């Protein structure tokens, strides 16, 4: 396959950035999208040019590191698939593909296609955990969880923290990410004790980090590679209202 790539190049956070166009002549349909970038980088290096910086690690769709905005869509054209799991057989010979980084003020660009998503870590620090010290747990089967709840909690917990939901949202809202974590714990008996404080703290932190508001357009769910459902946002809203109304603080 012959592919034309228009890739966002930005030297560092301060740089204004611009698109560069590259041609690749020998793309195999079996290559993953990132393997195509490997080939591009090999080529750029041997031509004495700077390779394109992009984040990736597991290349199995689970670490959440890869983050390319492909033809106007985070993680590209397929539903439920991360950039690293996207294969060139999803494109046609002669295609032009535009590749950009996630765009959001809360995710500043580090270089080229690499962005800083540490805001997500800080949201988790605000309450995305159950406060249990090592060693104090009771026997696991003393905590029973209805299968249905366990399954739902698992589906919410499957979020890989990639940030595609933010990139997809016209308001750059992080609601889906935060709601996934809040839901996971709200659905489990272990999460009940800190339930109210958790949602209040996490939402507060989300706002402080500069993520936008949710206006229910649903782009996040459509682009989420892990199929995290909008139901979680509804649940978080209920959790939030309930917590805000009854909070003693």
């Amino acid at each position: 396959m012959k592919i034309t790539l228009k890739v966002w190049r930005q030297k560092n956070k301060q740089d204004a950035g611009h698109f560069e166009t590259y041609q690749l002549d020998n793309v195999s349909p079996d290559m993953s999208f990132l393997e195509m970038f490997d080939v591009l980088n090999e080529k750029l290096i041997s031509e004495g040019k700077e390779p394109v910086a992009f984040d990736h690690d597991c290349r199995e769709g689970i670490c959440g590191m890869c983050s390319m905005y492909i033809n106007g869509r985070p993680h590209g054209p397929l539903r439920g698939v991360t950039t690293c799991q996207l294969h060139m057989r999803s494109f046609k010979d002669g295609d032009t593909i535009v590749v950009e980084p996630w765009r959001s003020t809360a995710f500043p660009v580090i270089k080229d296609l690499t962005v800083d998503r540490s805001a997500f870590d800080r949201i988790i620090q605000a309450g995305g955990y159950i406060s249990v010290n090592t060693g104090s747990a009771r026997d696991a089967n003393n905590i029973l969880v209805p299968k249905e709840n366990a399954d739902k909690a698992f589906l919410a917990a499957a979020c890989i923290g990639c940030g595609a939901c933010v990139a997809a949202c016209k308001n750059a809202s992080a609601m889906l990410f935060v709601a996934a974590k809040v839901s996971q714990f709200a659905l489990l008996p272990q999460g009940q004790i800190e339930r109210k404080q958790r949602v209040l703290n996490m939402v507060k932190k989300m706002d402080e980090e500069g993520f936008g508001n949710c206006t229910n357009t649903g782009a996040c769910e459509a682009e989420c590679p892990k199929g995290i459902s909008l139901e979680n946002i509804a649940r978080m809203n209920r959790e939030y209202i309930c917590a805000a109304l009854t909070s003693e603080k």
Partner: protein
Amino acid sequence: MATSPKLDAKIPEGPLQEKWTRYRSTVPLVNPANKRNLEIIVVGTGLAGASAAASLAELGYKVKAFCFQDSARRAHSIAAQGGINAAKNYQNDGDSVYRLFYDTIKGGDYRAREANVYRLAEVSANIIDQCVAQGVPFAREYGGYLSNRSFGGTQVQRTFYAAGQTGQQLLLGAYSALMRQVALGQVQMFARHEMLNIVLIDGKARGIIARNLITGELERHFGHAVILASGGYGNVFYLSTNAMGSNATAIWKAHKKGAFFGNPCFTQIHPTCIPVSGDHQSKLTLMSESLRNDGRIWVPKKLEDAKAIREGRLNPNDIKEEDRDYYLERRYPAFGNLVPRDVASRAAKERCDAGYGVNATGEAVFLDFAYNLKYKYGMMEANRLGIKNPTEQQLKELGRPIVEEKYGNLFDMYKQITGVDPYENPMMIYPAVHYTMGGLWVDYNLMTTVPGLYALGEANFSDHGANRLGASALMQGLADGYFIIPYTIGAYLSNEIRTKPISTNHEAFVQAENEVKDQINRLMSIKGKHTVDHFHKRLGKIMWNKCGMSRNAKGLQEAIQEIRSLREEFWKDVKVPGTDKEFNPELEKAGRVADFLELAELMCIDALHRNESCGGHFREEYQTEDGEALRDDANFSYVAAWEFKELGNWELHKEELKFENIKVAQRSYK
């Protein structure tokens, strides 16, 4: 054989069952006020590192945690699929601490240390308790109780799981505990930082040099103790199931500063991975071992059928039952498709070498779900719904949702990568490098031969002998981090309460930093013709062909020469673009490959010296008549711990393995 005086494993006295309890009751403690003044560096935030950092911080130590990814949550542990073992005996099927211990020692082909493995089995149950308390959403039965599945090398169901994403859920549990400590100010987190050297003062580990990967600045960090939980080194083979960034640099720099390297040649080749598709391939994808619960592995019985499949003239679904060779079930009736990984991998290679491979390259076998989908799950559902005499088509439709629930994400992944639907066609699989049992040698305290330097998780050599059982790496990583290091580090730090933090202006820091600078400057200044990947790929080929699934003396000798000349070439001709004072992934890779080029030589030296076959180390010269690994207990029942002298020169030290609680036998899964 006597153990080298340089290797004191510090195994506590007393009967096996009491060692750990006694140890915990008598190990010196550090009081809470002193803990606040003691600083610990943890390199790595995978299961081992995150659990250690969080637990130590909870105890009150001041912790600094490092990872090279952009977030602690992205460590390679996130990719673990199938599950985690624990001797809970929730299934009432005869499991016990002893049985888990026994299975692990036997699975490791009698090359692991009894006391460590027993302790691992003992704490395994606590891990599940801890994770559930953290809110890890393990799979459950309708009654709300935890569900289990079986893994290879065992006859009980002791594996806990969260669909095919167990590692993700466990890591997010440990990560959340870690983030809680960051919020409390007990842990300082350094993401996008790579440790590039260790600092020794008066022979003790006292800190690290790390590179800020965004700015390229080098930083000096002091610690009263340093813990390496930096994962395995399977990427020395270039193609492996590991994440792209997984590397040996942390342990290799420590090795060169005096930490002995244990059993470097023990590598696990996983039998069920998606076969290589072409030269562009950057990594291999595992299809979880849990698939072997329900998938049956086969190749055609007739050579002409295999050939026809390879040439695309025959659909495997059309091959009649009696013309299929379920070779694992045939050769190992007692364990069938659930034999340990090394055994399953070699059996696949044997069939493919004999001409029965089923893809274009001839290096693939089938993993087929059709049978269980229909006759196990389909039938179960038919019975449940009271459907009498269901048709084949009905069985297929009834079974599919159950298989989807159990393995859905894995099936989707397979389809995504290969473009083939595994619900309709058997999957194709082939063995690939997956895990390294070798690693830094550690004693019972998990301390390396450098005082104050610890190694946890896949980075150490400890518990899996010559072959790791499935679902045991997650168990080991979390055991090390949650339940072992919090105790054992006290034995060392109780003697350090008077040590004031050492200034990072100390000459040892300056010197360690200069070593790093020198290496970076050298790499940047070569400006050669070939990229880092070019060398990495060539190294991988040498290792896979000559130090891979089977090895022989001649090949290993050749490999050592080839690695040496490749290394020379690398240092003359590698091309690293950009500068070192910026975000530069090529420079990161170059440093890692430089270390792989040294480690690879030691792996071959180790493989060459071990004149026996055991577990994943298969020397063609040493096999039984029916092609099984032939151990030599009289001469090789030891851990090989290598001391670095200079490049190309290592000294071997032996730790004798004594089996007092288990009868050593030829491993049989027949």
